[in-house]
């Protein structure tokens, strides 16, 4: 829906899709990932981003934002913080920051945290609440604290039993997407890692997320030589389209608004 946003010929389809998505919203404000699944999950962040892009700011969207603000990774809870303080857990995670889990009651990871940061930054101007500001700052700190020793990000666990784990291109792109608005000097090294990943990865999905992230950080990204989107995989085609020079990548930015490209 983000990829097609702003295309006049897609408006009817997008309205129907939005109606379907809203039918997946639960009473607590969260969204289910599909019609089959009963629980609300991290995809609520995508729904809030989409609502913001569509200019929807009604009570049900606000309940989704409130749900996101209530969600906290379980590693931030007191027992884990105590265990971490005494080095009783075999990872080097800084559990003092509040991120977002894939599902309620689980630990924080890079992708749900990054996508929630995107969503909250988009709605921050409408809420102007200290809660939103606090969670955005905390989420950014969590992402920064989970950076791998090689300069990028993996799912969110950079070290186990004193063994450094490697970063991945797709999660590096997503982490940088969540960190939009931070001091670019602070992120210079990570952006360089992202550029390197983009040049080297064969993964079309990773390349597309890296393009979106780099463009959102104002970086010049050469148009890929290969066909921009040719996949029969709808998700991949959508992410590729978003990362195209004329794509809707700006919608992931705090300023990306109701209009979109036409």
């Amino acid at each position, binding site marked *: 829906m983000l990829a097609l946003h702003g295309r006049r010929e897609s408006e009817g389809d997008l309205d129907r899709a939005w109606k379907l998505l809203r039918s997946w919203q639960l009473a607590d404000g969260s969204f289910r990932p599909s019609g*089959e699944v009963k629980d609300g999950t991290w995809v609520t962040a995508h729904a809030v981003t989409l609502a913001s892009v569509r200019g929807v700011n009604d009570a049900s969207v606000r309940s989704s934002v409130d749900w996101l603000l209530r969600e906290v990774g379980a590693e931030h809870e007191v*027992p884990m913080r105590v265990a971490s303080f005494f080095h*009783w857990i*075999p990872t080097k995670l800084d559990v003092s920051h509040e991120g977002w889990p*894939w599902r309620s*009651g*689980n*630990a924080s990871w890079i992708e749900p945290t990054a996508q929630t940061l995107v969503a909250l930054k988009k709605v921050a101007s409408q809420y102007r609440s200290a809660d939103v500001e606090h969670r955005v700052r905390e989420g950014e700190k969590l992402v920064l604290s989970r950076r791998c020793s090689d300069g990028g990000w993996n799912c969110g666990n950079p070290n186990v039993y004193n*063994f450094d784990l490697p970063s991945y291109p797709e999660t590096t792109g997503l982490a940088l997407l969540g960190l939009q608005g931070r001091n670019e000097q602070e992120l210079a090294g990570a952006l360089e890692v992202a550029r390197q990943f983009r040049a080297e990865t064969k*993964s079309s999905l990773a390349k597309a997320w890296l393009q979106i992230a780099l463009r959102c950080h104002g970086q010049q990204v050469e148009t890929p030589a290969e066909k921009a989107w040719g996949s029969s995989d709808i998700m991949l085609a959508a992410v590729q389209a978003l990362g195209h020079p004329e794509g809707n990548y700006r919608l992931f930015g705090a300023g990306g608004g109701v209009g979109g490209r036409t």
Partner: protein
Amino acid sequence: MTRRKFAGLSAAAVVGTYAGIKLQRPPKLSDGPAGKSAVAIIRARSYSDDLVSRMLQGIRECGLDVRGKRVLLKPNLVEFDAATVVNTDAAVIVAALEVFERLGAREVKIGEGPGHRRDTLDLADDARYRASVPKFDRIFTDLNRDDVSPLPNFAGESEFYFPNTVLGADLIVSLAKMKTHHWAGATLSMKNFFGVVPGSVYGWPKNKLHYLGISESIVALNRQFGSKAFAIVDGIIGMEGNGPIQGTPKPAGVLVMGRDLVAVDATCARVMGIDPEKMTYLRMAADLGHIHTGRIEQRGETIASVRTNFALIDQYKDLRLA
């Protein structure tokens, strides 16, 4: 609460971290089900050996009938690193596809849902699955993104979602890799079932399983699917040390096969020089299958003739088989 107990409870609660078997009290070992289980150890020194003949031999030894069944081959596709051997080798999948088609399966599909990486087909490309396995793109399902249906009462959860491809299979063949594992001691045919949990519902990694407990989840998945499973463990070249991703290649020169996945994993552990009775998930699964050597009918090679000790990280040194 003792520091050790507290650490155990805490460790069971976080990230991919957090349920180290060393921090849990070992459960009492069950006598297991009645009867004995056949496990075949078939020697294969390289991936260019005739793996089809060897698999057919192992399947015959274990008495598996696949005629008319919808078969799902479940390789271990986790991550790619050209410097080591993280995944089930493509040659093993190619051979298994031919074997199960030749034995009269109604259909043979391949499915996997990697726990860390989003682009499954890219991983399959790196692991040379797409180049080596005939019609791969047509018969492969990314289990992370498959349509799902709920099953009731799984691992204490009122509902748990699984891919329809998995639920619809009559026989799931766990094409596992023989590797050490920094959370479970070793990852073999039973742990390989983590890949049937859909990332689209549970995330990357499937953190819900860590919260349920890694050993508990391994056992729950096998309690759910073990009765329609068969194991072929790729130990031709396994992984030792800091597995399952950063370890080093370790040739063991075997395929280990069987219908009782507990017995298969116990046998693999012994081949690797690991005491299966010290592995928490196997102790917990002892009511599902056999761990004791006296209850396992070893077919093909003997354990002693193929045993080769896999290096263990410090945290698991005490798992070493005497």
